[in-house]
């Protein structure tokens, strides 16, 4: 129990960072009905690119911003592959994420890079750090919710619900699809670039399996909150990520090795799919 309490605050911080990805992948998986795995590459690209910029002397916020744009553009690339060349979004995302690995190695020139001595948004004061990430996450979710309630947001939502209807209402679905993939992957990159500044280093193996973690978080949140309204749908990844991270922490205190957690995550996702009868999940 002591170990659990010790891990809990770090878990909250990690959970909030994961929440940003979960919110990001909610856009293709739930709003657009176009499951996309580019997030994995976008997360690590955002992380490494912002890390390198930081070393080049860019301020922490500017580095993060450029990291987001890089991740967002990766998402646009997946969208173009899908719209123009009919490559499925799942496959396109995996291929691009694989390619990002090489790009990241080129960017860093080595497998990892410490940035402890550089300026960072974060201070090692856990409470303050949690507040910063919570603010980022909640304001992002709020902006997204407000957008979905505007005319443009309403048009965006037809992609996932009835795309033929959308086109018949003279909506250019291609540009909205690119927009959705941009925002989704920019959020994943946002999360990655926050993570490097939190942990103080960038690593080539960052982000492996991150979309699956985020998906697990999203699904836990949906089981608890439901998806009846946009408010609930957008709160689900946030609550889900916090709980998911605590479950992981709890599993560690029970004596599971960190390497066992991936098995745990996979089983959680599969059981939610099997027992809730959710499709394409």
């Amino acid at each position, binding site marked *: 129990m002591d170990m659990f309490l010790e891990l809990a605050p770090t878990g909250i911080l990690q959970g909030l960072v994961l929440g940003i990805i979960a919110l990001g992948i909610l856009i293709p998986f739930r709003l657009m009905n176009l499951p996309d795995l580019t997030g994995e590459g976008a997360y690590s690209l955002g992380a490494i690119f912002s890390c390198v910029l930081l070393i080049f002397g860019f301020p922490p916020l500017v580095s993060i911003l450029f990291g987001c744009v890089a991740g967002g553009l990766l998402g646009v690339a997946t969208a173009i592959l899908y719209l123009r060349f009919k490559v499925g979004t799942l496959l396109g995302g995996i291929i691009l994420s694989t390619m990002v690995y090489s790009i990241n190695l080129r960017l860093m020139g080595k497998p990892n890079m410490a940035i402890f001595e550089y300026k960072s948004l974060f201070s090692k004061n856990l409470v303050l750090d949690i507040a910063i990430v919570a603010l980022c996450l909640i304001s992002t979710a709020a902006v997204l919710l407000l957008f979905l309630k505007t005319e443009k947001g309403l048009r965006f939502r037809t992609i996932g*619900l009835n795309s033929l*209807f959308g086109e018949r*209402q003279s909506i250019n679905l291609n540009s909205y699809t690119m927009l959705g993939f941009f925002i989704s992957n920019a959020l994943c990159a946002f999360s990655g670039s926050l993570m490097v500044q939190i942990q103080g280093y960038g690593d080539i193996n960052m982000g492996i399996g991150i979309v699956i973690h985020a998906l697990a978080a999203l699904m836990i949140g949906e089981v608890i909150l439901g998806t009846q309204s946009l408010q609930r749908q957008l709160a689900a990844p946030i609550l889900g990520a916090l709980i998911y991270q605590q479950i992981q922490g709890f599993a560690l205190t029970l004596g599971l090795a960190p390497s066992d957690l991936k098995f745990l995550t996979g089983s959680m996702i599969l059981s939610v799919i099997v027992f809730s009868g959710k499709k394409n999940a």
Partner: protein
Amino acid sequence: MLRLENIYKSFPHHFEPILKGINLEIQEGEFCVILGSNGSGKSSLLKTITGEYALDSGKIFLASQEISSWPLYKRAKMISSVAQDITKGTVQEMTLLENMVLSSLRGKSGVLRFYHNKKDEMESLIQELGLGLEKYIMQPLHILSGGQRQSIATLMATLSDPLLLVLDEHTSALDPKTQSHLMEYTAQKVKNKKLTTLMVTHHLKDALRYGDRLIIMNRGEIVLDVKEGKENLCIDDLLQKYGALE
């Protein structure tokens, strides 16, 4: 207003083309009814006009612009349609308000303005339907019956004054009473708004009662085109025409 030049359309695995050199010109404000047996190509004709199907060859002009290669969404700025399939004309998961707003934005670019502000405007439009559906404005559309949804879809298609209204058997999935009510409502809208309209139907009575031009299609060709003297036609005339086609 609308001009079709030598339209050909075929499908893979079909030996014969479904549309074989259609030429047609529709005047502004004309209400043209299309009859034809199953497989005669009438629905395909409408879908090539709206852009749901791509042409093999031929040209389509609308309001003196060639739109043959325009994608569906771009044509939809000028053309609105109601299909036979009730699930296609609306978004079931969205509320009545959301559906209505989407249609009212057709041909315009949506802006970053909260769509909820349009509630009163949309409510009064739904009231005009006379079905008492305005109380469901904040409910998802799937709680409405098929007839109610199709009525809403028809209302939505006429919302932003399209240059061309395309109705593809839009009443055929409904019971007879709802059918005639919706048909009457549609004719009223077309008349009041002076909409240029193409309507496919299987109902000979409707084809005679409504519209000021009648076209019969058979095997991908237009075999009859009556403009003058349409009001003098009777069901027996039509049955005779059909009989001659078999």
